[in-house]
């Protein structure tokens, strides 16, 4: 009985780990040069930085609302953060256009 179970398990493992290798390769997943055609690492990095920037904007707003930042400091930090966020959005747009080409 033990041998039967072991054989079933071995077959199950082989089926599980080999299934990606048995699938026909996805032309959208890998480009001609072998690099992934999906969103590039740079795009994902900038997207993460953009989301972090939004969170930073929200934190600054909460700090201002709870009195930790004066109006003047908040204005300065908020405008700096928004400028940085805009720059990130522009870079994302540029990458989108580049990847579309």
């Amino acid at each position, binding site marked *: 009985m033990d041998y039967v179970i072991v054989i079933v398990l071995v077959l199950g493992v082989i089926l599980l780990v080999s299934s990606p*290798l048995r699938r026909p390769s996805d032309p959208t997943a890998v480009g001609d040069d072998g690099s992934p055609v999906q969103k590039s690492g740079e795009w994902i990095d900038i997207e993460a930085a953009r989301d972090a920037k939004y969170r930073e904007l929200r934190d600054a707003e909460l700090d201002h609302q709870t009195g*930790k930042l004066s109006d003047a400091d908040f204005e300065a*930090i908020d405008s700096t953060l928004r400028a940085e966020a805009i720059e990130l959005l522009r870079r994302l747009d540029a990458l989108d256009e580049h990847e579309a080409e």
Partner: protein
Amino acid sequence: MGRLGQAILLLDLAVCIYGVVASIYGARTHRTDWVDSGRRAVYALAALSVIAFAVLEVAFLRNDFSFKVVADTSSTTIPTFYKLTAPWSSQQGSLLLWVTLSSIWSSLVLFVTRRRLRDIAPYATAVLLGMAGFFAALASFSANPFDTTSPAMTPSQGAGLDPLLMHPSMMFHPPMLYSGYTLMAIPFAFAIGALISGNLGSEWIRDTRRFALGAWLFLGVGIILGARWSYTELGWGGYWGWDAVENAALMPWLMITAFIHSIQIQEKRGMLKVWNVSLVLTAGTLAIFGTFLVRSGVLDSIHAFGASTLGVPFVILLGIMFFGSIGLVLWRRESLKTEHRIDSLLSREAMFLLQNLVLVAMVFVIFWITLFPLISEAITGTKVSVGPPAFTPFVVPLAIVLVLLAGIGPMISWRRATVSNLRKHFVFPVSFGLLVTLLLILFTDADRKPFALVMFGAASFLIASVAQEMYRGTSARRAMTRDFWPVAFVALIRRNRRRYGGYIAHLGLAVLMIGVAASSSFQHSRNATLRPGQSVSVDGNIFHYVRPTAVVTSEKISFGAVIDVTKNGKQVALLHTDQGFYPSTNTAQDGIIGRFFDSANADSTIGLDAGPLRDIWTVAAANLQPLLPLINKGNKLFADDYNATLKQVLKLPKSEQSNALNSDLTKSDYWVYRDAAVQDIANQYTKHAYPIQFLLIISPLVSWLWVGAIILAIGGLIAMWPAPLAIRRRSLSVYRSRVAREIS
């Protein structure tokens, strides 16, 4: 079933090796099919390990003593609950538990990130499988939980579980610790992946942050459960002894605490990349170092598995992790350069950095003092053991600074803070901290322990700062929504889980540290030998030994004492403490009767009256000395009777001897008389006023420690719990639209 388990372990190892090769090949050739195959190897490993663990659990539940590990750590008399937990009481079973938990957590993180981190994940997969493979190899070749004996050699009864491990905490303590350790491997593996791939942004941190928090939470809960076990089971009245294995769990916990704070600086400002990578690599290495201490037997500890041959493989793994980590960080040092600098020393970033330095300093101190016995042995040839006094002069001041920083940090904004704002925020918490300190000096004797007094002040400051932050945040929310206070408070936490979950954790830290400072500085304890009817005083409480007790069950014999505690003539508590004697399997040495009274096979049940302000803690060591003549007499009588029956049986053919012996002994009511003799001897204990040695303790605010730990864990859970998707989207969209307006 043993062969099935062994085959699965070998299959585990094969899957690990395959997965490492497939992942690295996929990463180097950009073949996503191979990368996916490597990831699926982790899923397969998890499924196989769960099956293997189930096989082991079934062997314990069925009392299958053909499994060596079941025969060594279980018996038919232990409750089912403890049979389920017995697998991780042994080196072999705990290695399998490690592989199982590691593969489950690894599967989870790789499933969550299956469409992201495409350049990092394959290397992380290889690291995770490499580490799981290491443990699977140990379980296969060095400490196999599926080793069996031949049917002829299979004992009819097991040696039983160590009585000290028969405690409810043991159901959860080891799995929690191992979950913490194995979860710590996840940010470690992704950091290695980020370093190899060169993708050193914040993405890997964002995707593994919850796993780092999970490691922090599980390891923290495991440490506290261990402390609770020590307090209620070990019979010395303490919860933390600066034991090597306790320290081995605390060090990675402190390191990951530093990490989950400092990654916020990298996420927000792109700073401290080298620092964060170094922290997480050190935490991962320390987790394995802790495992090495538990399993190698190089240091003495009640928590360790004792001497083993696993030390050398662990030293090799630690060497690879340590030097590999240093090599990778040096290789990528240019890419790890910071993008920004700290704007001001009066900023939350600066406070986080300072807090990180304090945590790392604590780890440094604990590490060297823990290793001191090994260092002294290497230099002088003598292992010099060190205890709590070696740690406290360094750790206590650092802990006070840490508590102060935990209060200061939340009150300072990111990037910069002005002096006028600081003044406005600090007035209430500082005043509250000073007021509490002053009141303690005036109305208590707390000033005789200056460090404890300062800790009370610092923790009060921290509590006030968190309360103020909650109040201000809720006020700000109410100003926008006009909600009722409780609604606004809950909404504030729901919308800012990370921030306010962290504040709640800080609150828990304050409560916990008050408990630690009070109970360790103002504890009153006394050893006393009393006969029934005698009394002794501890810190104004009169402990009166009322009467002895003796209870005989099939599982154990418990000898106890009833103690009446009074203060100023009024009863405070009526406590019962006992020592349970579990039958030993060594009949040849202990005797047929003596095996039921073996003090090496005993545990203690404390008498505890826990309250919000103080615990009354008692334990009694059963005095069996007066019973020894009776026990010895019983041993002789029953051995003579047994030998006489055996002599008759030996005349029969060999194949009939065993059955005939059992049959004759049963027919002559041998076992009935033996049990009656044991019962009679136990009853003598209550009929005579034998003197008993007691340890009696009055310990203030111990409950605060457990309550603080619960608050700390709740804070961690809130910070870890993902915000509902709708809230996240709404929140991001507000800022997206604001920024978008500016672009247009």
